[in-house]
């Protein structure tokens, strides 16, 4: 059944798979080509077409030229906002999740199964159930419409995922190793630092990639808790397409879309294996 032979059925298999792959790549190809066509060129034809000459200026305009909501600084400030939210929130949630995952799997303490059970409910609770309380809490502590507020939200919410990922990885570490270290007098932090952390790189890479991708791509919290100059890039893209509805600038918009997608696409290309592992780890919960 699985041997490699030249048969009509195998040609058919390749044909189908390649056709589907082409369909999957088509939107990316279209938007890349459009990012190199001038707005006029697109307006005369359609969104689907070959660039007549390469309009690299679209990227310059998208990065720092065009206007969103009366500010003409391009997509750059919003990319910076996204980075300033995503990087700290990814680091905090991953580190705290690693410690928490270690505590509930290897250190063990009274009430650990209970609190872990509640924390993992966060994987399922829809964002909509938390929107109003977060609005009120952020307003009360003065973090509404700030990047720090988004960092706080993503750190706390991310804990559900990061704790689960790390806990499921750490349960495979032999308990005898920890017991021996405790008999030798090693405390909570020393065991984490000397034994658990050196074993952790694979799961930390999975967790960091997962958190980075999700926080970068997040939209609902960004659009709800921030406005104007404080918005992350996903919210700014929506504001952009609303702002240019009258005079479409599809070339520039395509370039903006590509710039906004680039960080997570790059991570996917570089660490695809770990990205997929995160996807399936989240699924097996």
């Amino acid at each position, binding site marked *: 059944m699985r041997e490699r032979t030249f048969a009509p059925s195998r040609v058919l298999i390749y044909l189908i798979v390649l056709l589907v792959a082409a369909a999957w790549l088509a939107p990316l190809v279209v938007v890349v080509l459009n990012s190199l066509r001038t707005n006029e060129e697109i307006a005369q034809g359609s969104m689907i077409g070959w660039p007549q000459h390469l309009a690299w200026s679209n990227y310059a305009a998208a990065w720092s030229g065009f206007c969103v909501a009366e500010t003409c600084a391009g997509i750059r400030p919003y990319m910076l906002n996204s980075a300033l939210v995503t990087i700290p929130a990814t680091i905090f949630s991953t580190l705290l999740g690693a*410690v928490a995952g270690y505590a509930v799997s290897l250190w063990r303490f009274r009430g650990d199964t209970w609190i872990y059970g509640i924390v993992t409910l966060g994987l399922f609770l829809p964002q909509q*159930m938390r929107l109003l309380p977060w609005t009120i809490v952020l307003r009360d502590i003065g973090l509404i419409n700030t990047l720090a507020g988004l960092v706080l939200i993503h750190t706390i919410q991310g804990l559900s995922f990061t704790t689960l990922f790390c806990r499921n990885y750490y349960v495979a570490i032999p308990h005898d190793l920890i017991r021996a270290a405790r008999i030798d007098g090693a405390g909570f932090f020393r065991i984490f630092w000397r034994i658990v952390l050196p074993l952790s790189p694979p799961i930390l890479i999975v967790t960091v990639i997962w958190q980075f991708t999700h926080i970068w791509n997040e939209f609902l919290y960004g659009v709800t808790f921030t406005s104007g100059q404080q918005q992350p890039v996903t919210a700014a893209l929506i504001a952009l397409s609303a702002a240019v509805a009258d005079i479409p600038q599809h070339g520039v918009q395509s370039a903006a879309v590509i710039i906004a997608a680039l960080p*997570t696409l790059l991570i996917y290309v570089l660490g695809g294996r770990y990205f997929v592992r995160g996807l399936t780890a989240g699924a097996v919960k």
Partner: protein
Amino acid sequence: MKAGRPAFPEWVRRLPEYLMIWVPLLLSAAHLVSFSLWTIWISFTPSTLVPVTGWVGLRNYSAVGASRNWQIALDNLLLFGISFVVLSAATGLVLAILLDQRIRGENVLRSVFLYPLAVSFVVTGTVWSWLLNPGLGIQKLVHDLGWTSFKFDWLIDRDMAIWTIVVAAIWQSSGFAMALFLAGLRSVDADIIKAAQIDGAGPIRMYRRIILPSLWPITITVVVIQLQFAISTFDLVRALTNGGPGIATQLPALVVYDLMFQRSLLGRGAAAAVLMLLILLAVLLPYAAWRYVRRRRSSHA
């Protein structure tokens, strides 16, 4: 300081450890529980622009349930949820079976089917809105090529617009189903396959009798996760159709947002959010029960 006698009591010495263990976990758990209860409470109050105390019973729920917006959202969720879940699982399964035939370039192909998952729904929704826009995308291209009677305007057709979301969602997340199915196919016992081959079973019979039946636990997981995604879909619709034309592609998550932050009807918005949670629980609780039973059975076996 004498040896063996700590300068501080035990609990003070271990304070950093207690703080490090409990603060993040308690913050996470407390926010999940209290925020849920808080939203449920708001759903029973007459809150509009700001949360207020008071009790209106189920009035917010009946108002949401009677609104046309919500009814359309529920109809759409049913149509979108079922067709998206079935079609993406089927696409994922077919792709996984094809990729499992020892074909060249499997890694590259797998990456191609999975890359949309790394990109924001805002980005993919925007790109699909261009492709499906009749004046800009596929229809315009075909017209320019000379077939001027060609029509593909689902995006602006009230009855068909929801299908644009189905298409975009399948494109975005079939790869996920494929990844899970592929892992399942790879874990089918090679001895059983060999035994069946010796018995003279052809490939089709092999799949129907042996391989596909062993995939059904994974199928259930795929369906539940995709349903969970369908129920909370927001970004994709916001970027692709923004609920339009009119309110033709309204979905529950959009209704919640609209009530809370555009109409400032916090009580009703909270009620709609709780209804969303109930729909989700209707999917997740049976799933959790099923997993529990399975785990007990396998631990007894």
